[in-house]
């Protein structure tokens, strides 16, 4: 993975927190990062050239009147006021290369002075067990702060640690071994016999979690359950959780509506064009 700076831009050493999405059901992490970039008016500082991410290009996703600023599949944005670098991923990882990608981006983060990484992802409602919905859409988390995945900061916000997380569980251990350079993972591990307990560590957020942890960085995964559909509400939820975790005030956001969020211009067509009216 190579990092290319935009002309005239520099990496801000004060942006010590990295926020990035993990690919997940409903693309919720990516939508949340879009919302954060747009609302913080984060500045594009460069591109990550990663052969394990499929190519795509498009017009500027954020400006109200896009003037042709090229968007690439992996872009880095800085929000100096929030001390955050945000990386947006716009296309999938080459099948089977998620762990390679996770290692490469972890190396980028470590090499560029990041000391806290926040991974945004969603989980499939179809996999939930014993979820308490009495207090509305719940945020779950997984942290490297403690071995059991807990973090005091997250607990005081009323968030629950990812259910059934057990770092000694075979798949989590296998992931940790893969993430460590030079470590020899268990050759008897069979991919074809994944069971329920193997589901969460098989997801992309888990690969990122393990690889960032292996680099000695503090990692927090923020997660919410959803189904495929209109996942914009979940994106707001994750973005709000990120803002709370970072201790941001509403003044950091530049919108005029509730929460001062700015909807990215590209969201106008996120679900495709309107129906053909001649049908009616």
């Amino acid at each position: 993975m190579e990092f290319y700076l935009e002309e005239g831009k520099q990496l801000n050493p004060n942006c010590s927190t990295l926020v990035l999405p993990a690919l997940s059901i409903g693309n919720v992490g990516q939508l949340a990062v879009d919302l954060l970039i747009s609302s913080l008016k984060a500045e594009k500082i460069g591109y990550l050239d990663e052969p394990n991410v499929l190519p795509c290009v498009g017009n500027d996703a954020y400006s109200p009147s896009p003037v042709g600023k090229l968007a690439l599949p992996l872009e880095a944005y800085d929000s100096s006021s929030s001390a955050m670098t945000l990386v947006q991923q716009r296309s999938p990882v080459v099948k089977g290369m998620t762990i390679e990608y996770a290692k490469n981006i972890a190396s980028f983060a470590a090499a560029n002075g990041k000391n806290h990484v926040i991974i945004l992802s969603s989980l499939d409602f179809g996999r939930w067990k014993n979820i308490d919905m009495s207090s509305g859409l719940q945020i779950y988390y997984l942290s490297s702060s403690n071995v059991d995945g807990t973090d005091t900061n997250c607990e005081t916000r009323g968030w629950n640690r990812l259910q059934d997380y057990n770092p000694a569980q075979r798949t989590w251990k296998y992931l940790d071994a893969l993430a460590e350079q030079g470590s020899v993972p268990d050759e008897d591990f069979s991919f074809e016999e994944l069971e329920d307990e193997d589901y969460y560590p098989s997801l992309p957020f888990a690969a990122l979690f393990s690889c960032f942890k292996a680099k000695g960085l503090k990692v927090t995964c923020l997660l919410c359950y959803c189904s495929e559909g209109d996942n914009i509400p979940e994106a707001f939820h994750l973005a709000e959780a990120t803002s709370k975790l970072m201790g941001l005030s509403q003044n950091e956001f530049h919108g005029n509506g509730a929460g001062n969020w700015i909807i990215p211009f590209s969201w106008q067509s996120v679900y495709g064009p309107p129906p053909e009216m001649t049908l009616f």
Partner: protein
Amino acid sequence: MDDVITDIPPPSRFLLEDLNNFTPPPPPLPSPFLVFSSADSKKGFQPSLLIIAMSSPSLHFLHHLSSKTLVASLVLPEIPFAGNSVEPSLKDKSCNIYALNDAEKLIMIVLVQFSVTPERAHAVAKLLIGEKIIPERVLILDSVQSRNFRGKLPPDETIAFKLETSLERKNSDAGDSSLVKGLDYYPSGSIVDGLAAALLSRCQLKKIKGTLCVSWPDLGFPVMSLIKSLLVRDVFAGINYTTDGDYEDEYLRLSRRKDRIDSDLYT
């Protein structure tokens, strides 16, 4: 009618294997490589303009330029040569690279006549731009992919859009004109993927002036006229070139044949 069970899911949907860290990686493939027509060519090229054609109308028009010389071919090892003819033909599965004769400055043309998977696009783009071929400016011609376009694509209209690298846009903002004029930018929210995207990304990263032009539909006389007009008016202005054969009639026959094959009457 789409089969919602077995068809490829829409772009925002992942298959289970896309979200599984333990999906086995694809079997490794040998790297693509360039074959040069003469020993001199191996030193490399610095064309003032590199045109990379992928859409049917652009392939058709540029193939029929008679004032060009074959200088190299890009080989993708997984694409067999079986069925290719000795002389370059539009029916070949090939990626030939030509130099346009009689141009004051070197103009090179790449005709991509095989399908490059998204997973191979990065490697192919690296080979075409920035190693043996270092262009000052790049023009990529591809078609709009309806699965990636979030607006309406009228079946009976011809449209085209462009995307440009920062340097090409800056060139235009500074008063020098864009290479491709009169086209709107690709609408925000829609994307272009595959080789065209890999090529334009490479231009952006390597700070090369680059333009991607995507047209719709992929076949038909109107879109051929649009692409031809764009090339003749904007790209080849002031350059001597000749075309061979009755390519317009040939293209019309090809378009009609494809229309019959694609017709829902025969599903």
